């Protein structure tokens, strides 16, 4: 799941940012911490060029991990985080936003989803439309790629915090018995989707949005019972390494996720117009997917992409400035 990947990614600090931080001899008016995933890189640059254009300030983009960004927001080193994912970062938000009150979240949220997806071909031709269909071995046999008659479903990367939850969901729903659950890097999972789409072969896989795969292929999310907090009983491996799976039960969809822009409270006090501008930024999930696609699939340079985006969205910038 993107949020958890991002959470993991956030633990790292790019060499460039360390060098920039250590060797900083001049100061921009504002520093945007830039995460290393595509939409975060695009939105960080869009924020930079939009503020420079509309508010006339000098803005620097620095690549760094999320936890470092939050520490920077707290200390005054960093002013803005372009994409704070929740519920993944609930504990960090609690610390800096609720308790220390050194960081504020923009009220505008971008909705995110996660669950199981299939190509349209899989749903229409092979009748796998709902997670309940995965319990039917006759249906899932078409997902077999290793010749044992049992289908396979990629549930995420081994390092993602969403992956054990996907395993819990599979066990709770009952399809852990009928399909083989695969854990491997995202590039392998996505290349399998590419190969399946190229040969009209059915495939079911863990998915999250916003994500460029939805623009690359015709993807349909499998239906399933709505999230119900009373039925979402998750014990993570870190909390109980031996019994997390048997102690957990979650036969429902994921809770809705979202992300927001964050900025330092002091920055908002120092530059109220910046706080207002950031609080008005209202990226849509579709725009985030386009950003992810432009940088990940089309390999566009984040800064160049952001400048084009700014040029093409003068009306949005105008609205954010009010």
């Amino acid at each position, binding site marked *: 799941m993107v949020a958890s990947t991002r959470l993991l990614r956030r633990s790292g600090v790019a060499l460039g940012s360390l060098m920039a931080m250590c060797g900083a001899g001049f100061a921009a008016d504002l520093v945007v911490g830039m995460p290393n995933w595509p939409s975060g890189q695009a939105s960080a640059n869009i924020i930079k060029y939009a503020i420079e254009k509309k508010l006339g300030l000098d803005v620097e983009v620095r690549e760094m991990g999320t936890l470092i960004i939050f520490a920077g927001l707290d200390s005054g080193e960093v002013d803005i985080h372009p994409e704070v994912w929740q519920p993944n970062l609930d504990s960090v938000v609690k610390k800096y936003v609720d308790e220390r009150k050194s960081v504020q979240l923009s009220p505008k949220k971008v909705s995110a989803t996660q669950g199981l997806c299939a190509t349209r071909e899989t749903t229409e031709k092979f009748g796998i439309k709902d997670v309940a269909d995965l319990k039917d071995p006759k249906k899932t046999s078409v997902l077999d790629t290793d*010749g044992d008659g049992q289908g396979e479903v990629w549930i995420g990367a081994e390092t993602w915090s969403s992956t054990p939850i996907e395993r819990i969901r599979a066990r709770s729903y009952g399809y852990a018995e009928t399909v083989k659950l695969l854990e491997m890097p995202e*590039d392998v999972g996505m290349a399998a989707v590419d*190969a399946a789409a190229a040969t009209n072969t059915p495939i079911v896989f863990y998915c999250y949005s916003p994500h460029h795969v939805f623009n690359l292929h015709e993807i349909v999310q499998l239906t399933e019972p709505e999230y119900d907090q009373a039925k979402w009983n998750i014990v993570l491996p870190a909390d109980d390494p031996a019994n997390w799976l048997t102690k957990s039960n979650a036969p429902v969809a994921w809770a809705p996720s979202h992300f927001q822009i964050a900025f330092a409270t002091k920055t908002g006090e120092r530059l109220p117009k910046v706080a207002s501008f950031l609080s008005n930024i209202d990226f849509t999930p579709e725009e985030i997917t386009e950003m992810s696609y432009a940088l990940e699939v089309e390999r566009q340079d984040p800064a160049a992409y952001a400048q084009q985006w700014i040029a093409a969205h003068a009306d949005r910038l105008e609205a954010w400035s009010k």
Partner: protein
Amino acid sequence: MAFLPQSRGRTFGAKIAACLALGVAVCATLAYAAETQIFDPKTRKWVEYDRKKARSYYAAHKQVPEAFRRQIVKFRTAEKPGTIIIDGNQHFLYLVQPDFTAIRYGIGVGREGFGWAGMVKVGRTAEWPTWTPPAEMVARDPNARKWAGGQPGGPDNPLGARALYLYQGDQDTIYRIHGTPEPWTIGLDVSSGCIRMNNDDITDLHSRVAVGAKVIVLMQGASLYKGV
């Protein structure tokens, strides 16, 4: 596409550790074939494509069935041009090209699939590589004994015209994508863990691939991964 291949009847379980123990040369050892099926558009039926059929098809047509021939296909992916994607289940190797296309080659894979899935890279390449059978094969197989010191590259060498050596980081995985002196085996599962292509195709691929190229091996035989 005239023929759509699919595989069935394979068993998996090959772990990379076991494969490592087998050594390089096992990759090129030809043995019996597991079953592949191909779709015959004339009869609109899936037909078994086994070693015997593969031999007779090749004898009659001087080439493998159309699906396994080198061709440009539509291939939408976020992977950059130059990346290799191996789909052992369908016996295809894709070399990603610009504009959402790929060059698709037919491949032969191991009796137990590739044995693992994941991401590696082309660590080095060789033209007409030397084949050295592992010690246990030398002990077991009189035909291998004479090549205990290495069989020089050439038309009879099991590794064929070219070899791409797959590395994980700086480590040789012992897996190779290589040619074959037996082109009719493309589309079958007849070696132990390596990817075989006919000599024209491996020569073509070799000419297009740079050392360091990313190689993605798809799920089939994904026993390397936790929970599989």
